[in-house]
């Protein structure tokens, strides 16, 4: 029985934590929020230098050839300190797609550049205000050319490439497009989290290359979403833990009615509820990490379970952290809002909480899985 990370993985996590603390990632995140930037180039360069972008990339493509588990511990630390970098887009979404479905040629030409940071990737799915489905994708791939507009594409400005979900005749395909092409227009979209960048991306007969089986685009996308759900769940538990820690520190330091507010039962119970939600989420994320790293048949269920729990935990912890801070929590000056906003963005980026609850029930119906 070993539902835990190895000593080496814990060491890697500790190093990641130290690095991000030394760089003061949270402060960098605040600086990004206060500027018109949507990421921090210097922090990103250092992360690339550390080799994190190549964690899962096999050594034959100049990566580190490590497992999803190493990626999970890094994700938790990035989430804890809200590092404003395009890591999740490029690594959880784009690189995962390349590794899972790329042809040998595509892997050889792109994976080494992801390691060096010469290529930064993202994934373009949404087009309308409704949840994307296999039936409502209208960005079209025809004769190797893409046309149409995607919205809410993360990190599209810094990204050099995107995997695009496109209609292709009667089916849906995944394809890779060069975002630096003159046939691609990228416009920033205002979003609730000033430290993250979301963009509309218009393809005007832009060149694109199919990745993976051209008729299995939608099911391949679902597989990548399962991978990403587990990886993002670690960012979410990292953020939830940071929110709980902030609330805990404040509840001990802040006095009202002549005593620390953390001595009031109403505050204790609030913080205990946060701890309960976080513990459930963490345990489910560990299970998701196991399913992902061992490519288990249970992955769709495990990923949805991790996603639902981690989304609930981060939203609860970040929202109640503001509440614990009272009026201070509502100011720009305190860090609480950064976690609140990130928690909402992370609860939507792969699809909403109701969508993932639905995915979970569907997976139970299909697999007839019992606890």
């Amino acid at each position, binding site marked *: *029985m*070993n*539902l*835990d*990370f190895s000593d080496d993985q814990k060491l890697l996590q500790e190093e990641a934590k130290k690095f991000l603390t030394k760089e003061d990632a949270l402060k960098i995140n605040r600086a990004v929020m206060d500027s018109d930037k949507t990421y921090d180039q210097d922090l990103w360069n250092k992360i690339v230098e550390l080799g994190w972008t190549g964690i899962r990339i096999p050594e034959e493509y100049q990566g580190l050839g490590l497992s999803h*588990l190493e990626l999970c511990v890094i994700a938790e630390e990035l989430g804890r300190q809200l590092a404003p970098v395009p890591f999740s887009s490029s690594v959880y979404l784009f690189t995962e797609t390349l590794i899972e479905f790329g042809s040998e040629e595509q892997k050889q030409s792109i994976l080494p550049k992801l390691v060096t940071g010469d290529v930064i990737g993202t994934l373009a799915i949404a087009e309308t205000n409704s949840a994307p489905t296999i039936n409502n994708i209208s960005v079209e791939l025809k004769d190797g050319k893409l046309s149409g507009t995607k919205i809410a594409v993360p990190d599209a400005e810094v990204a050099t490439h995107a995997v695009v979900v496109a209609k292709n005749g009667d089916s849906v395909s995944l394809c890779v497009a060069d975002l630096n092409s003159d046939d691609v227009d990228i416009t920033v979209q205002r979003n609730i989290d000033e430290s993250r960048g979301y963009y509309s991306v218009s393809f005007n007969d832009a060149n694109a290359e199919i990745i993976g089986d051209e008729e299995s685009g939608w099911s391949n996308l679902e597989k990548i979403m399962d991978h990403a759900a587990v990886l993002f769940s670690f960012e979410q538990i990292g953020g939830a833990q940071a929110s*709980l820690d902030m609330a*805990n520190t404040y*509840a*001990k330091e802040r006095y009202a009615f002549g*005593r*620390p507010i*953390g*001595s*009031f*039962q109403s*505050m*204790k*119970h609030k*913080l*205990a*509820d946060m*701890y*309960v939600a976080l*513990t*459930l*989420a*963490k*345990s*489910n994320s*560990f*299970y998701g*990490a*196991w399913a992902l*790293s*061992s490519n288990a048949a249970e992955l769709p269920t495990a990923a*949805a*379970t991790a996603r*639902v*729990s981690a989304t*609930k935990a981060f939203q609860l912890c970040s929202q109640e952290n503001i509440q614990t801070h009272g009026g201070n929590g509502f100011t720009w000056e305190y860090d609480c809002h950064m976690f609140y906003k990130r928690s909402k963005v992370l609860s939507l980026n792969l699809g909403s909480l*109701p969508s993932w*609850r*639905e995915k*979970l*029930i569907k997976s*139970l*119906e299909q697999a007839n899985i*019992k*606890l």
Partner: protein
Amino acid sequence: MDFNDTPQEAEFRAKCRAWLDANAELKTKKTNSTKNMNVGNKSLLEAAAEWQKKKYDAGWAMIHWPKEFGGIGATPIERIIWAQEESKFNVPKGVYEIGLGMAGPVMMEYATDEQKERYLPPMAEGKEIWCQLFSEPSAGSDVAGLRSKAVQDGENWIVNGQKVWTSGAHFSDYGILVVRHDPGLEKHKGLTFFFVDMKSPGIEVKPIKQLTGGSSFNEVYFNDVVIPDSQRLGEIGDGWKVAITTLMNERLAVGDADGVDANEAFELAKKHDKDGEQLIDNNAVRESIADWYCEASGLKNTKLRTMSALSRGDTPGPEASITKIVSANKLQAIGNFGMDSSDMSGMLMDEESDFIKFQMAWMGAAGLRIAGGTDEILKNIIAERVLGLPQEARADKGLAFKDIPSGS
């Protein structure tokens, strides 16, 4: 990461399994229910005694105890493996857990060598049943506020007062007991701990009828009961310290709420329909079941994390402290949902129907949210012991017990 036993664990599991296979029957869907002990249910008592003796004779009764008291000095992970395997078999439950789980550790830590030799083996063998006498009518969550009085009289103590919520008192041979020896001292300082022969003159046991209609708890009255000083556990005034040992064990023992879970809710929702629409196709139902599934899965994986730490020989983190809060509340919600699924007839009880398990869950959960620490107390414990928040300001601090406001 993996869910496999180490080779040693696998070997131990196989040993457990081989003995269980030879001595008990595997649970089937029909027998897969936990019987509660009921007053007067002699057959369960007899069956439990027989099973306990069988385990004791083969060395399986209290495997984590040292050899001289009937154990095999098993490691914590071996103890869990044994419990996992035993739980797959249709064997009687609910008679010995309190004595072995709570009185056992206290006797092990505080009794004299002669007392351990005298009392621990029969406890493990099931010859003598033990109960725990802590709560009182005016001392529940605030158990240190108990009022039962002990007055020293030479080599003896004379005890008067009333205990309540004592599981199994009516069939117990001995009990562990906290009483107040000096109401002039502060609340926690005036307590002393004893064990008592339940057949002592002056002890009267009255069953409590619960909201389920059953009676697994009792009131226990003490009327000039004589307890020899040799049966004191710990120093005079150390009662709270000793009691904490058992309360910690109780928190571990009252763990997962048994009963219907997300799976049963899911199966039920597939059975029922409304005008041809299956309940499982209703969005609100799907969302509720998804959330219960996530909670159930979270608890299961939390337990696996604890086991992983034990398997490595490490001390587990505090994560298991969430178990009872989450599982008892989930049980209440699922029981509620089950009855709602039958709409206007959801209140009708039928002993023969499988459906009754939702009704029993709903009733039982109301008690589980209180037993062994209320939701509120458990949240205080998480806040204070896990998160390190300061204690609530208290109106009884520094006061002699007799001067503490009691509302009466």
